[in-house]
């Protein structure tokens, strides 16, 4: 038994390599043979099942090793499995050579298992949910490549390859969010999807550029430092400036040689790298793409919000945590806590079931980012893991509800669904308890850890204490609101009376009237009638039904992880797995721990105990408080919410319009950009084109002069020579008579004269 759980370099690197390759091969097969392969979706799902099994098995090895306190940082160069990229074999020792291998560490192990299991569930679920879609095969291909990118990102041993897969994910999210762009049978979605996919791509691109700049700064300065420092050369004789393990170690040496203070360039680089997280993990102010990403199919939303994409940003923070200076961490805390509160407030007022979940994701990502900023890298990563499961479950349940209600997303037209969709209801309820942080559900443990990190900072003022106060307020209120809006969702959707049979409650018309940011629906669905089965939310009657088996199975799997008992088990594993000493190796881990407040590092210490008690208190109060508020407002007094809303008036409108961030971005970025584009177009059309045309005209004028010279002077000279020869010929021709006898007489006469002259002389 124990032998099976030991890391076996000879075999396990091959297994790990197979993990991203299976979806990649699946993608290639599906994209090229989709018309000939009748069951491509089932093959891909089977492949993903294998991936899920491998990743869980490999994670079990990591858990076993860290449980025994053994180091678990594996790089495939151990078995010589690595390859050179941009490799200059003429100069082997050059640090510009990229050596790429598989990196398997506790954080990667946890993340890989999460991605593997959730991707498998999403694949399975999509077979039911996407059934009958026009671009079903393409959808499966794309979601496979999406999974591939995330799995590879987790296994990348260097930040440049992480960035490569990061970008592939950006592309795939663009394609998947825009899945309905080509489907005019989706009356509301297909224009919104086009717009939302562009928005997601361009917004995250802002962060990606920041990250790229950050990578450059790290690379250049680490190389320079290594070249001048004897200590660095002794510690890392074979230095790869972009490899994570080397970056951590080098960061430690840099700070030590700098007298224990982070140099300015590391702060700058850290801020830029954090910019990547802000874009990818939808932190304020680049969060605007995530709510609109729900224009894609629901499984894609589950994928983006849980396992891939947004998780990548937090994962990057976990990878770079040792390199982030206290100043960077303060900024990280600030943005994380702002985002956590801000999105939770918006989430309370949304009526679209997916919009609630989208803002809840942003808020939860704020929790994770704030946790990392407060030094609780374990808390942040652990919350990412628990959140991945319950958020995937919530999204897939929401998809199941939408599927059951025939593509209605507005919660005001749902209600009373718990009897009609019992399994979906139970799964969603379990995940809601988890995200709200009710005791012994998974979110309870991870939120507890985050609040603990915060209290530990608070109790030790020398660690940016001011930020900890702000973070505490934001996170506690955010958690309260989280609990409230999630139970509001449950009560509006599953309790009360079914409200879906009223004619005026039409989905797209309703959203349009709400001032929803999406482009207005073209043509009302009443006069937009087609036989496509997917668009059946009008005349199929309103028989709500439970979803097909594959969907329900994947819901149950995901919900199970959040349940009490299982959550405690996962918490136990994660505590060992995500200890800094295990995550970054002992030397770097110790260094990292030395920079953190005492309570975070050592739970058994006095401060640790105190923080833990306080965190427990706060998290319990806010979880139950939110639940109680939701029960009161949405079960006991359903008339109250609208009255409260009207009382708040302008403030309510501001929240409802998402604090006008989209409008601000529109006014400050989009419009000036468009206007600049118009100016540039004018310049292009008039100045640049004019210049080119002028050059063309000049050339043409020169050409016609040259043609004239050619025709008159050069041709004239040639013709003149011909004419002269001709006229000479004509003149000489007159001498000839053509009479043979005359010639003969002349010849004889000439002969006689010659003879006479010879004789006489």
């Amino acid at each position, binding site marked *: 038994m124990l032998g099976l759980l030991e890391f076996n370099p000879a075999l396990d690197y091959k297994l790990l390599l197979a993990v991203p390759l299976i979806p990649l091969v699946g993608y290639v097969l599906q994209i090229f043979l989709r018309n000939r392969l009748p069951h491509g979706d089932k093959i891909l799902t089977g492949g993903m099942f294998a991936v899920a099994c491998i990743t869980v098995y490999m994670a079990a090895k990591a858990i076993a090793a860290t449980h025994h306190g053994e180091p678990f940082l594996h790089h495939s160069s151990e078995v010589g499995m690595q390859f050179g990229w941009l490799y200059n074999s003429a100069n082997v020792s050059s640090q510009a050579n990229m050596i790429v291998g598989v990196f398997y560490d506790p954080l990667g192990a946890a993340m890989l298992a999460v991605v593997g299991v959730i991707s498998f569930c999403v694949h399975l679920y999509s077979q039911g949910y996407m059934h009958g879609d026009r671009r079903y095969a393409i959808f499966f291909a794309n979601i496979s490549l999406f999974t591939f990118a995330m799995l590879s990102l987790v296994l990348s041993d260097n930040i440049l390859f992480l960035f490569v897969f990061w970008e592939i994910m950006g592309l795939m999210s663009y394609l998947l969010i825009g899945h309905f762009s080509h489907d005019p049978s989706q009356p509301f979605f297909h224009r919104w999807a086009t717009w939302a996919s562009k928005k997601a791509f361009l917004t995250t691109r802002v962060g990606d550029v920041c990250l790229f700049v950050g990578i450059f700064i790290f690379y250049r300065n680490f190389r320079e430092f290594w070249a001048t420092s004897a200590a660095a050369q002794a510690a890392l004789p074979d230095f790869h400036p972009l490899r994570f393990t080397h970056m951590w170690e080098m960061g430690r040496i840099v700070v030590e040689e700098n007298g224990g203070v982070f140099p300015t360039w590391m702060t700058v680089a850290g801020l830029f790298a954090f910019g990547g997280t802000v874009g990818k993990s939808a932190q304020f102010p680049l969060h605007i793409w995530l709510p609109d990403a729900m224009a894609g199919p629901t499984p894609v939303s589950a994928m983006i919000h849980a396992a891939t994409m947004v998780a990548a940003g937090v994962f990057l923070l976990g990878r770079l945590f040792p390199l982030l200076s206290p100043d960077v961490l303060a900024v990280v805390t600030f943005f994380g806590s702002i985002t956590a509160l801000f999105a939770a407030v918006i989430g309370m007022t949304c009526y679209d079931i997916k919009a609630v979940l989208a803002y809840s994701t942003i808020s939860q990502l704020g929790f994770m980012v704030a946790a990392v900023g407060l030094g609780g890298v374990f808390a942040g990563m652990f919350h990412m893991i628990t959140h991945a499961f319950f958020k995937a479950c919530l999204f897939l349940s929401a998809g199941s509800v939408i599927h059951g209600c025939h593509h209605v997303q507005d919660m005001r037209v749902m209600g009373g669904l718990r009897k009609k969709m019992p399994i979906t209801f139970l799964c969603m309820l379990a995940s809601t308890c988890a995200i709200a942080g009710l005791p012994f559900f998974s979110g309870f443990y991870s939120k507890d850890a985050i609040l603990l990190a915060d209290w530990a900072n608070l109790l030790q003022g020398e660690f940016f204490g001011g930020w900890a106060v702000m973070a505490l307020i934001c996170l506690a209120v955010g958690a309260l609101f989280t609990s409230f809006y999630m139970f509001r969702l449950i009560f509006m959707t599953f309790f009360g009376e079914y409200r879906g049979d009223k004619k005026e409650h039409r989905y797209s018309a309703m959203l349009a009237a709400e001032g929803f940011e999406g482009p207005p629906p073209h043509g009302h669905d009443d006069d937009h009638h087609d036989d496509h089965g997917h668009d059946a939310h009008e005349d199929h009657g309103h028989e709500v039904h439970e979803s097909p088996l594959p969907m329900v199975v994947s819901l149950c799997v995901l919900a199970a992880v959040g349940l009490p008992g299982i959550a405690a088990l996962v918490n136990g594993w994660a505590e060992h797995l995500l200890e800094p000493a295990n995550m970054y190796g002992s030397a770097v881990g110790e260094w990292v721990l030395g920079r953190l407040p005492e309570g975070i590092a050592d739970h058994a210490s006095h401060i640790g105990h105190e923080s833990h008690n306080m965190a427990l208190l706060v998290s319990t109060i806010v979880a139950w408080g939110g639940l109680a508020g939701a029960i009161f407002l949405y079960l006991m007094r359903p008339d109250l919410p609208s009255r409260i809303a009207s009382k708040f008036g302008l403030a309510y409108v501001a929240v409802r319009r998402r604090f006008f961030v989209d409008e601000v971005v529109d006014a400050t970025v989009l419009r000036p950009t468009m206007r600049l584009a118009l100016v540039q177009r004018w310049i292009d059309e008039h100045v640049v084109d004019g210049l080119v045309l002028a050059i063309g005209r000049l050339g043409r004028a020169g050409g016609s002069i040259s043609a004239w010279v050619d025709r008159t002077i050069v041709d004239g000279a040639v013709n003149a020579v011909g004419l002269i020869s001709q006229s000479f010929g004509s003149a000489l021709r007159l001498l*000839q*008579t*053509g*009479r*043979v*006898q005359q010639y*003969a*007489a002349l010849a*004889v006469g000439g002969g006689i004269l010659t003879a006479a002259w010879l004789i006489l002389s």
Partner: protein
Amino acid sequence: MGLGAYIAVSAALFAIGIVTIITRRNVLYILMGIEMILNAANINFVAFNRFGDNGLDGRMFAIFTIILAAAEAAVALAVVLNVFYLFNSVKPGEADLLRE
């Protein structure tokens, strides 16, 4: 009778041939004039052979010339025939295409 008499006859024959070629209006006479010139040369060959000591060379040349004259006459008559077909006349003054 010395060498001078032979050469005189030969020169006379040659002069008659030349005059014939230049003056006659019929190609056939011109051919005859050519034959006379050739025979004037033959007389010279034979005469110089008789009065010199070059073996049989002169006489051999004379015989060659006679054969040559026969061949030449055949060719010339063919040419004349073709000229006649072309111009419908055998007068050399009328075959003056080269002049154009």
